[in-house]
């Protein structure tokens, strides 16, 4: 019993130390760097101020932020529309089949997402699988330009992030008590009305967490836009990487990451707030 307690303590201290060393301290350093200045000799100079945040407020930087948010928002919406019926069907299938289907959703995670993104170029390029198939079937005569388009970027992001939407939706839909639906129908609601007024509100925690899980990584996954979009758009992720690796403006890059972190923090806060409210609603 004593060794058991000792083990527990060691694991807890170990993971706290791990988080402190590799998550908390680096984040504090990034936060500090964002208030420093650049120097030619070193990467940062302790001349403090808010100038990096001021620099972020100009039009070009705001455009980068807006286009990243817009792209990620669109991807989230598509994922939601595609994943909701999928999760609903998944929740209705027989249990033995359901586990197989769930496994199929998860299997792509076993391959690195960068590798999967490169694999998509083999599907989409002018002499790729999709074009060759369509030409072979006689549907088109000239290859379609699918690679290096905004559509390819959206497709790549949806493909990569879809499971993050399916799983929470599935969890919410599976828990849904079908008797509520029957009651709604008995009380005269049309199927559409029952869906909007009963199913959607009851699965709202799943919808919100699915959206968070897609939207937040979607802002940062710049390599999808680089590989499938031809690197024509500068997204927030590219911008931060360039500040650190190409232009050596660490303080500005740090300020941009802090802003991104703060943005995500605010959204998580809103989420937490909304689930609490939703929790109260369903208790009523």
């Amino acid at each position, binding site marked *: 019993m004593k060794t058991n307690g000792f083990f527990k303590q060691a694991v807890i201290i170990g993971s706290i130390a791990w988080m402190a*060393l590799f998550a908390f301290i680096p984040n504090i350093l990034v936060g500090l760097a964002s208030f420093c200045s650049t120097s030619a000799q070193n*990467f940062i100079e302790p001349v403090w101020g808010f100038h990096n945040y001021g620099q972020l407020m100009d039009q*070009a930087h705001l455009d980068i932020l807006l286009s990243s948010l817009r792209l990620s928002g669109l991807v989230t919406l598509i994922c939601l529309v595609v994943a909701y019926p999928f999760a609903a069907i998944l929740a209705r299938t027989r249990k033995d089949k359901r586990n197989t289907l769930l496994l199929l959703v998860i299997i792509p995670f076993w391959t690195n997402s960068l590798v999967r993104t490169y694999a998509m170029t083999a599907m989409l390029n*002018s002499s790729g699988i999709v074009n060759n198939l369509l030409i072979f079937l006689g549907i088109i005569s000239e290859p379609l330009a699918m*690679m*290096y388009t905004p559509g390819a970027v959206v497709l790549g992001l949806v493909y990569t992030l879809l499971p993050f939407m399916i799983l929470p939706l599935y969890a919410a839909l599976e828990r849904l008590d079908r008797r509520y639906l029957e009651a709604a129908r008995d009380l005269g609601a049309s199927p559409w009305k029952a869906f909007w007024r009963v199913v959607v509100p009851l699965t709202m925690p799943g919808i919100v967490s699915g959206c968070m899980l897609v939207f937040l990584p979607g802002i940062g996954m710049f390599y999808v836009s680089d590989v499938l979009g*031809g690197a*024509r758009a500068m997204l927030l992720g590219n911008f931060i990487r360039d500040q650190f690796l*190409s*232009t050596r403006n660490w303080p500005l890059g740090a300020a941009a990451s802090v802003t991104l972190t703060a943005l995500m923090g605010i959204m998580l806060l809103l989420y937490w707030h909304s689930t609490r409210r939703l929790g109260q609603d369903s208790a009523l």
Partner: protein
Amino acid sequence: MMHRFVLAVLVVGLSILPCVQAHAADKELFVYNWSEYMPDSVLEDFEAETGIKVIMSTYDSNEALYAKIKMVDGAGYDLIVPSTDFVSKMSKDGLLQPLDKSKLSNFSQLDPHILNQAFDPDNTYSVPYMWGSTGIAVNTANPAAATVTSFEDLWKPEFKGKLLLPNDMRGVLAIGLKRLGYSLNETDPAKVREACALLQELVPSVRVFDSDSPKQALLNNEVVAAVLWNGEAYIASTENEAIRYIYPREGFSLWVDNLCIPKNALNVDNAHQFINYLLRPDVAAFICQGMGYSSPNDGAQAVLPEEVRSNPIVYPTDADIERGEFETDLGPAIKTYEECWMRLKTGQ
């Protein structure tokens, strides 16, 4: 409580220890090189011959290399391959160590023309590995592409959506500056802005920005003209005969990549041994043939097959080389370049 704390420290300490120990073994060599710049078999042959295991990581820009080496203060890697101006920048910063020429018996194989340059007088810190150019590759199956002779031609409406440019600030700005007849190291902000305005007209034609493997988009018929390194064009031309490489009329960027040992490298002897191996004529010739860049090694040129030695993609004529220019450090002028790059990428 105390012994728990000790345990926690041990747990954390043990997890870091293997990383530290990995560097202490003496039959290893950590190389940090450009991606697709050295055939894997060269590393295997070197290990078979000397028993030294080469661990190679790669980068895709001098800026990335510099940032990393500076961050770790020249430790962690035993051999790096910076280009011209970055050799002088890193040696000024004290990030490189002088090479011991007595351990480099094959140094005499190098072409004296390419030695003792301004970026490293007497080759104190560096030995040239390969050199090359950034020009235009075209797919001559496309009628418009077949007539390209200059950067200016890329502005033609026929190339709309069929153009590839490097995903690299200096590489793209050089196109605009050269078209205007300026140096690609121009520091006058007005001239850089002028080039930028021209490039803004070119950007809508660009299908892809890529510096990792630009030959792919060309071979997949996604683009018909691409600004890229000659080695990429050479490999593409061996896979598709319609692909030609052009040294633009207005001038272009030339570069030499150099083998250097960082200040705090651990396996200095192994690094010298590997440099000497790379300077051996048969090895240098093999790398040159595989990668399509020019070898500065006289001995290698003698054993190269005729079709590689006389291939203008690998070895440009003297008349073409005349128009080439080396990149140098821009100093504070780089700010104007960055502003332009940002504008090009955000479409403002």
